[in-house]
């Protein structure tokens, strides 16, 4: 268990102790902290892109040292995609289902005992889960896709700069590994929604109040949850009218997948892919300033692969 045994009564968890992540400024003998996989072509929907997604995901993770670096035998893993909206995969409002399915398969091959796939979406879950294609793809890969149980949102001590306490889904702190799988999208309040914003999908309560200080609250959440791995889907990205989108003209193919252990670096890289300066995004700048990660992702010597 990541945070020690938790009874269902007292759920005031303290943030996880820092895990065995390499120091951002470590020399190269350490396995890479960041990998960027880019597909040489841009195959057509739907089959071409499915194959692309699978290959990009596998290569990006292999470049980091393989899934066994992040998932150990017998682990319970939560793969947390963006299933926030009642949208089709082509509309790039939700994570690419084949990326999710591939990650699930890789977790099982690395010895995971159980892989959960779930999200607390903005549109009703029973609508967004199947329409995004993630429910079907994940179930086919053997994951346990769950609709969140209201009873399991518990008040937890976040002890952040802005958030002291918040309702967090119990399972996310009880599983052994959390893998954050966002999709890169434009967002008119914070410019872009990437990994740290995607973590809003494991909390409950009046989440719509966090927008009054996204810079502070998202860093608090990210520091509390500390996902073991972040896999940013930038195969299709939403360049305008995000995070809901809807217009296919706003979807652009970037054919890229980013994987990393540094939440700030992955988000910074994602921001540049969307055409934004990482410093101009509040939670990235604050994450860097508070030591959560490195905004200068190049300093991590990312491994770039062409697939």
């Amino acid at each position, binding site marked *: 268990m990541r945070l020690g045994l938790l009874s*269902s*009564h007292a759920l005031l968890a303290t943030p996880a102790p820092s895990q065995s992540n390499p120091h951002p400024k470590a020399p190269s003998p350490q396995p890479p902290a960041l990998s960027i996989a880019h597909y040489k072509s841009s195959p057509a929907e739907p089959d071409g892109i499915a194959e692309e997604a699978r290959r990009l995901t596998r290569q990006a993770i292999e470049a980091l040292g393989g899934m066994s670096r992040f998932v150990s035998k017998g682990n319970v893993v939560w793969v947390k995609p963006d299933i926030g909206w009642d949208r089709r995969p082509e509309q790039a409002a939700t994570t690419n289902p084949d990326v999710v399915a591939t990650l699930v398969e890789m977790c099982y091959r690395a010895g995971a005992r159980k892989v959960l796939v779930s999200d607390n979406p903005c549109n*009703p879950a029973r*609508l967004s889960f199947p329409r995004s294609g993630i429910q079907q793809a994940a179930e086919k890969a053997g994951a346990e896709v769950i609709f969140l*149980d*209201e*009873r399991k949102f518990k008040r937890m001590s976040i002890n952040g700069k802005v958030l002291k306490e918040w309702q967090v889904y119990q399972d996310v702190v009880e599983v052994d590994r959390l893998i954050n799988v966002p999709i890169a999208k434009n967002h008119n309040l914070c410019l872009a929604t990437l990994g740290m914003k995607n973590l809003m999908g494991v909390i409950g309560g009046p989440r719509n109040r966090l927008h009054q200080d996204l810079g502070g609250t998202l860093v608090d959440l990210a520091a509390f949850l500390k996902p073991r791995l972040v896999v940013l889907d930038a195969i299709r990205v939403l360049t305008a009218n995000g995070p809901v989108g809807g217009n296919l003209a706003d979807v652009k193919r970037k054919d890229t997948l980013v994987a990393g252990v540094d939440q700030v670096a992955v988000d910074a890289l994602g921001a540049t892919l969307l055409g934004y300066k990482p410093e101009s995004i509040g939670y990235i700048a604050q994450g860097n300033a508070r030591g959560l990660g490195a905004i200068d992702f190049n300093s991590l010597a990312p491994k770039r692969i062409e697939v």
Partner: protein
Amino acid sequence: MAQKKATSRVVWLRRVTQTGFFLLFCYLFLQTVYHPINKAGRGVTFFFNLDPLVALNSWLASHAWVGAMLLSLLTLAVTFVCGRWFCGWVCPFGALHNFFTSLRGGSARQKLQVGSYHPWQKAKYYALVAFLVAALLGADVVGWLDPFSFFFRSLSTSIYPAINKGLVAVFTWIYNADPGVGPVRLTLVTEPIYGFLRKYFLAAEQPYYWGSMLIGVLFITVVALNFWRARFWCRYVCPLGALLGVVGKNPLVRLKKNAERCNNCRLCLVNCQGGATPHNPLEWKPSECFYCWNCQSDCPPQAVSFAVGFHPDRGPDASLRFAADKVPSGDRRPQTAGSAPARAK
């Protein structure tokens, strides 16, 4: 209490059929949800399609109707021939009232008092006339009292949300309190049950509705009124019952009584669901009869039966399959011939 004989097979068949349609209604109710991707359950409006009152009112008020409503012609056709069989065998709301009426205890005398025909049963016909006239003028408000609308609306906006809230509260309490001894915890049993309920019965999210209190109170009142008068709604209020009563007022399948066997015990009246005064075929009210067959089942000398034809009397050699149970051999009396009316008793 007078001697009670075993319930006839027909009555058991009716109960099974009523229960079946009731469960079907509940099943279709639960199916009226989102199915991936963006589909409602199939055939969830089945009962509304069967309902001739809905079809008639829609057509009167809007001069249009929906293809599926043609199913209601089937209901009308059978009612034409067999009277208000629909109320006795099919209607799930009627089954609910039937059930609550049967919960009411009491002696045969008490049941007679509350179960006999009452002239106020005519109220539903006047209500029907009012609704139809209003519909003719464009105001389709029969939905307020149409039995399926009333039942479905009460379930969807009031009863089901309340049941959902109660069940979730119970399972949440158990989950949080986590009672048990050592490794043996109650949640080991309740959590799988809760998972099953979440998947097949409970709502995805707790629903809340404006106006649910009034709708819920009306529903509970109507159901509770069965303790005051047998099948209160069906007899006094239901406009669909009234419509079927009008259409079925001259059925081909009629009540018969073997006048020689009848000992005037009046047991047939005690459990009559519709208040149709079955003790005398010439006074029997086809418009109120639900064809529940209780009279036939309860009649100790097996004098009562239902058969095709207009002769009020019926001898032991009943040819219709659902007529009285087999007569013990040795009791064959000659039939009274001709059209002489049975001796009124």
